[in-house]
């Protein structure tokens, strides 16, 4: 009975209900996009650090976990390697450069990463033999770049770097392609640490010891993270230690950006609750006489409430369905460089929340409907 009435009413007023489902669909699209954008932006910021082959990151003391303000001489590597629980450690240098093209295409700003071949920090490859020595003119490009430019193993790339007042060009051979590892929205290319030291923008002058920005530390399998993290700064002077999560949160603007987007998402959901609530409440108010009549001829409160709930759930389901599908189709038409990322947890979380806004928003109208007295059918009230 409740299902029959709920469906008949929707069907005979399908224009109105569909319109309302479309409103929910648009809210769904908005929520999913904000979620995907938050995911995409977060990803573009954190991807490099997140994927770095390391259990622990070592920064210069008081660098606030900022790679760019951290300077670590490679001579410290030996000291760190000696600490108990450390399996291996590798230097990671980070600077920026531009990839240029002989055919006149516009150059691409990239993050130039220096690592020691075979040490922590050297990325795992999807294809190619990888870096061979500390000073070879070889490069691993990440998938972001290889996809965008169309590079494959064996190709030559030209890197432009500013040293002093001179712009220098270096030619490198692609020896590997790794997965997507953007650093602050820039694609990364990874070169041997000494090559990196030679290429990176610098004021010039006499090169001394190679200075990396951070060290990637791998722990031996038995080692306790906390113990090593406390031991390291005690044994080695002038360093601070962090895990990846802390390092990510320390990325400038990262937390603020994510908070802003999450606030937007929550507010959009709240607006959704209000919109659904308002719609069904107005609809219930318009039906007071009719609901009173139904109760007067023997419809129970429970059936009236169930009927209202069924309608709310159906309309919400349809709206969220259309919205999710629409979002999916829309993103397929997007060019690759828009930072949106659909991750299963966030998407299903958002869809779950969206499905809940219907019943939550509808609670008021269900309550209202169940409070209508059958007496109203004959124009009386108690």
């Amino acid at each position, binding site marked *: 009975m409740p299902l029959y009435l709920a469906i008949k009413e929707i069907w005979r007023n399908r224009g109105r209900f569909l319109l309302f489902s479309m409103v929910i669909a648009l809210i769904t699209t908005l929520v999913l996009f904000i979620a995907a954008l938050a995911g995409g932006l977060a990803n573009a910021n954190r991807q490099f650090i997140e994927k770095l082959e390391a259990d622990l990151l070592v920064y210069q003391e008081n660098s606030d976990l900022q790679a760019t303000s951290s300077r670590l001489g490679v001579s410290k590597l030996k000291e760190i390697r000696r600490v108990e629980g450390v399996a291996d450690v590798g230097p990671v240098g980070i600077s920026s450069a531009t990839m240029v093209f002989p055919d006149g295409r516009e150059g691409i700003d990239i993050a130039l990463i220096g690592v020691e071949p075979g040490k922590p920090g050297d990325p795992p490859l999807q294809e190619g033999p990888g870096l061979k020595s500390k000073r070879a003119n070889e490069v691993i490009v990440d998938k972001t770049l290889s996809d965008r430019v169309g590079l494959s193993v064996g190709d030559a790339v030209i890197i432009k770097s500013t040293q002093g007042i001179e712009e220098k060009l270096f030619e490198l051979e692609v020896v590997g392609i790794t997965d997507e590892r953007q650093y602050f929205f820039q694609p990364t290319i990874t070169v041997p640490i000494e090559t990196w030291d030679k290429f990176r923008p610098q004021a010039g002058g006499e090169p001394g010891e190679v200075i990396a920005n951070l060290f990637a530390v791998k722990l031996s399998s038995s080692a306790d993270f906390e113990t090593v993290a406390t031991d390291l700064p005690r044994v080695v002077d002038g360093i601070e230690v962090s895990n990846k999560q802390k390092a990510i949160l320390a990325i400038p603007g990262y937390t603020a950006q994510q908070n802003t987007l999450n606030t937007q998402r929550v507010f959009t959901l709240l607006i959704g609750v209000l919109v659904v609530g308002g719609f069904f409440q107005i609809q219930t108010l318009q039906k007071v*006489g009719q609901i009173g009549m139904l109760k007067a*001829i*023997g419809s129970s*409160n429970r059936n009236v409430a169930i009927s209202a709930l069924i309608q709310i759930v159906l309309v919400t389901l349809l709206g969220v369905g259309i919205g999710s599908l629409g979002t999916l189709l829309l993103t397929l038409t997007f060019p690759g460089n828009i930072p949106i990322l659909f991750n299963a947890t966030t998407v299903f979380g958002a869809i779950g929340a969206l499905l809940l806004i219907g019943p939550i928003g509808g609670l008021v109208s269900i309550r209202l409907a169940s409070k209508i007295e059958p007496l109203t059918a*004959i124009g*009386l009230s108690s």
Partner: protein
Amino acid sequence: MATALRTSEVTKIYGKGNSTVTAVDRVSIEVKKGEFVALVGPSGSGKTSMLAMLAALLTPTSGRIYIGNDELGQMDEKERTLFRREKIGFTFQANNLVPYLTALENVELMLRMNNQLDKTGKTRARELLVRLGLGDKLNNLPAQLSGGQQQRVAIARALVHRPEVVLADEPTSSLDTERAFQVVETFSSLIHEQKRAGIMVTHDLRMTKYVDKVIQMIDGKVTRVIDDPVQISILANTSSFEASDNYAEGYSSQLVIPMTAANNSRLAFGVTG
């Protein structure tokens, strides 16, 4: 004829403390199966409250109501809902039909609620509508029906599940005179044919033409009960719409039912209550 409905000293008092209003004052009436009764009276006479109590929508402050084998005062909310669904047929002044159901679906709704929507039920619903002259409107939505047609659909709905009592709240209030007569005439013949107990609340005395008994209420009390066909016909014929309208708007005289009716009466009107 067996008694379908009986009330004993039914009283309804609204409000509490010093500001109470006695809407229905010790009303005792009886309606038999196959009997069509008009409950008449001006606004505020308590006829609607009486109707609400008969329909188990309102609980009497005191007194008893018996319908079939049930005593309404003994029922809880759930039982009253079930009682209304099974034992009562109802037509209303407004909001009579579910707007998104067709004429046939509206009638079938009553059967659906009572789990009687089988083949015989469906046939009964269809036949009732045909009998009421709506054979070609079965699949029309209420918005596509005139006021009189809607009222007739409501009558079909009120009868289709074979209730003990059929209650009609001002069934003619939104109809023109001709249609009003048609609707009440059909209503009356169906009540008689199907042996239901019918009670129609109306302020239009002309509609009493088709009833077996007129119960007049004033100030919550039953002031007159006319069950003589001659008296009723005189009452119905001598009541102009204007007269009945004035009668509804507010009366000042005790003699609300026109004197002509009383003068022609062999029996003196007993003022009860």
